[in-house]
């Protein structure tokens, strides 16, 4: 195939970037069309399907990211003494509010959770999962918060539209716990 020789270029770019790259971005750097990039990504993915390869391409945060295959999860965990991202249930609830209701102010989060959220919001800001997203046009111009691209990458979403919808019937009282 004509563009075949660019396969290595794309692999090198994805590797160096670490983070997801949009096809637009890759196309700009390689001075080619996004359609070409799509084809190259498909070719690379075919290569990666081989048992002998440890990597794969993830479609996430509106781009492509080179990552290890999930099969090697346990293996890699032995390697990395990475501080696993562990969020408290308070943090997860608050993150859920930001994710599903963004942009949202601190007091709106507090109204839903029924408790102060200052500590949790600061923790979430530190993790980089949420960020300030302007100010609300109301008294005191409170800061609005939204999720970041890191949120999408970390949770494996391609875009905010991909956030899973809520089950329709909430009145059925299924325990949230189990």
């Amino acid at each position: 195939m004509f563009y075949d020789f660019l396969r290595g270029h794309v692999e090198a770019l994805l590797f160096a970037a670490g983070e997801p790259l949009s096809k637009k971005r890759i196309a700009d750097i390689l001075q080619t069309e996004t359609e070409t990039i799509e084809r190259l990504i498909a070719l690379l993915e075919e290569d990666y399907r081989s048992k002998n390869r440890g990597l794969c391409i993830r479609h996430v945060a509106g781009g492509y990211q080179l990552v290890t295959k999930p099969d090697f999860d346990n293996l890699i965990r032995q390697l990395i003494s990475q501080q696993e991202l562990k969020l408290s249930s308070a943090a997860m609830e608050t993150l859920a509010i930001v994710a599903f209701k963004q942009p949202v102010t601190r007091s709106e989060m507090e109204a839903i959770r029924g408790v102060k959220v200052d500590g949790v919001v600061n923790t979430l800001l530190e993790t980089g999962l949420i960020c300030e997203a302007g100010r609300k046009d109301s008294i005191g111009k409170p800061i609005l918060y939204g999720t970041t691209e890191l949120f999408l990458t970390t949770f494996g979403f391609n875009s905010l539209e991909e956030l899973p919808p809520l089950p329709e019937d909430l009145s059925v009282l299924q325990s949230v716990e189990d």
Partner: protein
Amino acid sequence: MPNYNIKIQDFEGPLDLLMHLIEKDKVDIYDIPIVDITEQYITYLNAMKEFDMDIASDFLVMAATLLQIKSRMLLPKPPVESTEEQEDPRQMLVDMLVEYRKIRLQAKMLTECLAMSLGYHQRKPMQFPDIRKKIKHLSFTDLLDSLNGLLTIEKHEPALIERQRFNVQDKMNNILELLEQNNNSLEFSSLITSKISRSEIIASFLAILELMRLNRITIRQARPFSPIFVFLREDMTDVL
């Protein structure tokens, strides 16, 4: 005390606790037995107190809300004048709980997504210390727009606290004088009359409390709802 098998500390906040109580009894969220739930809720707060735990104010606010809803439920309904539907006093609570449950479900879904996503391992972007990222060209307008965001952040005027017009110390002297003029005893209600302003009532009341603390006066009441009398204690003088 009713039997509760709730582990203390388990709850993130009042809604979390309420949710637990409701789910535990498999109660219909749209038809909460408010009397029962309120009782359970308050029992839990009392248990927290027994364990010497600080009860966060959020929990107390919810307790007050529950009690208020309860009392409104118990009040006789005003005669229905119009066809307008009377709002259920529990509606606000239901809305909050439904919203909260939604968020909890969403948090749970996010947790599942995270668990799945963590199976993929990424690598850190390559670093090029010799290259500095270009900054998008910005204009003065961009800068002004940002200032605009800050602009109407309320500039808080310093709150003015009005000087107390009624001084507790003066009131104390005043009450002692009155007592001496009236054979060392007075009816409590004569000291706190509705003729005086609210701030004067507060000052008088505080003065009475302070005089009691200083053992200058005693207060007696023959039986519940009978008049309260204030007496001057002559064994103690010159404490002021």
